[in-house]
Structure formats: structure tokens, C-alpha cells
């Protein structure tokens, strides 16, 4: 760690919420707008805490990757070879037939 960071980091650790709290706020930021105070806390804390900085990046990446996948295909699928089992298929057809009489 650079000398400057070595001096600054303990100060920032004392002034900002703990990593545990910061991760909660980072998660919350994905769902709600944070207060200005909370935004600053996250910025300042992640400036010196690389672990929380990674956490934040990773949560954002997870969201972005899911969005990409859902944009590409409405059909988000576990496995494109998965099929409705034949027994179920027949049962459903039978039920539809009964119901359309």
C-alpha cells in the first residue's frame, strides 16, 4: 500500500461504516436510491478498501450479466436441451382436451 494510503486508510476506516455495513448499503443501492450521505460513505470507504470495492464491482457485474442474458433471449434457460417430459406433455394435452369439451 502506498505511504499516503497507509496514513489515510485508518482514518477512513474510523470515519466510515464497517465493511459489513457497507456491503449492505451497496446491495441496497441496487434497489433504492441512496441518500447523499450513504453515497459518499460508499465512495470514501471503497477508495481505500479494495475488498469492498471488489464486492461492489462484482454485484454490479452479476446484475449486468443477467441483464445481457435476458436481453438476448426472452428464453433464459437452464439448458437449451431441456424438454417438457413426454408424460407431462400427454397429461396436459389430455387435460386440455377434457376442458375444451
Amino acid at each position, binding site marked *: 500500500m502506498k505511504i499516503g494510503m497507509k496514513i489515510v486508510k485508518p482514518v477512513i*476506516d474510523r470515519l466510515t*461504516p*464497517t*465493511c*459489513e*455495513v457497507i*456491503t*449492505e448499503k451497496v*446491495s*441496497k443501492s*441496487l*434497489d*433504492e436510491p441512496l441518500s447523499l450521505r450513504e453515497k459518499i460513505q460508499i465512495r470514501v470507504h471503497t477508495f481505500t478498501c479494495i*475488498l*469492498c470495492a*471488489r*464486492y461492489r*464491482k*462484482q*454485484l454490479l*457485474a*452479476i*446484475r*449486468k*450479466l*443477467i*441483464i*445481457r*442474458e*435476458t436481453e*438476448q433471449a*426472452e*428464453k*433464459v*434457460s*437452464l*439448458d*437449451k436441451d*431441456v*424438454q*417438457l*417430459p413426454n408424460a*407431462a*406433455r400427454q*397429461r*396436459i*394435452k389430455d*387435460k*386440455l*382436451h377434457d*376442458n*375444451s369439451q
Partner: protein
Amino acid sequence: MSEKLTQTKQINPGDWVDEYGDLLYRYALSRVSNENIAEDLVQDTFLSALKAVSDFKRDSSVETWLMSILKRKIIDYYRKKSQMNDKFTTDDFSETADFYAEGAMKGRWKPDAAPQDWRINPESQTETESFMHFLYKCMKDLSEGLFAVFTLRELEQLDTDAICKELGITSSNLWVRLHRARSQLRKCLEHSGFGKP
């Protein structure tokens, strides 16, 4: 009126099952992670579609229409579950032990829980696919309550008010659940090797 009836006669729901059954089933399975429930949801979807076929206006495709019915059924399923099932609403999360609980390091990352450096390229197509593969695997480890909120928020992309309303939970309860789900998934993804060069 008679034109509508003729149209109804021409539609054969059995054909729908052949044409759209797999698609609906795959989608349902990705959202509820249980084969029997997925089958039931698909069946209910086709039954509802059959009842409503005279309302189907053909300004959207049959596929889109069926999918919208299925999505509604999935949300209803989660809502019923959250109302019925204690496990859904009580604290179903074991203590993380990701952070020090006391002492000088209280609230700070424990070394074995500390996030690693991920090397990922969200632009890469193959990476996106392998990511979803790992994500689905990891999602299976989530408890029902966490699985539901994560699915509704991140996969269905419902807003938080809608989810709270559907599941009958407070927004602070929702935030706690989403936080736990995300933390658990992040950790699982990391352990599964995603993000390692």
C-alpha cells in the same frame, strides 16, 4: 361473433402444447427450480389460455401471450408460497461469518471470505453463457425465500414495490433478503471458479 367462434374452432390447444410446451417448461423451470411445479405451471398456463382464447386478439404473438400468462402464474405461485410457508418469512439465513463479529476488527472482512479479484469481460458472449450456467447452479443452493426474491428482482426485473406487494413483505425485509441472496451467490460464484482467468 361467429367469426370469433370460427377462429376459436381453428385453434387447437393441443398444437400449442407441441409448439410451445418446451419453451414454457424451460422458462418455468428456470424460475422455480422444481420439475413438478414447473409442469403444473405450464399446465395451468395452457388451461388459462384455453379459457381466454376468445380474448386473444392476435396483435401479439401466441408465444408472447402464453409467456405473459406463465409469468403471471409464476408470480402468483411465489405469493401463495410466501403466505403459506413459515420458512419463507422467517429468518432462514445462517450467520455469514464473513465479517469479524467483535474486537478491533469488528465488521471487517475475514480473510477467507474476502472477495477475490475477478477477471471478467461482460462483453464476451461465452462468458455470459458460462456465467448463467454457474449462476443457476448457485441459485439452487438458495433457500426458497431468497430464491424467490432474487428471481423476481433480477430475472423478472420487477421493482421493489411490486415484489413487496406480491409477497406481502416490508421493503426493509426485502432489502435484507436481497442482500443475503446476493452475498451468497457472489460467494458461490467465486468458489465455482467463475472469474478466474
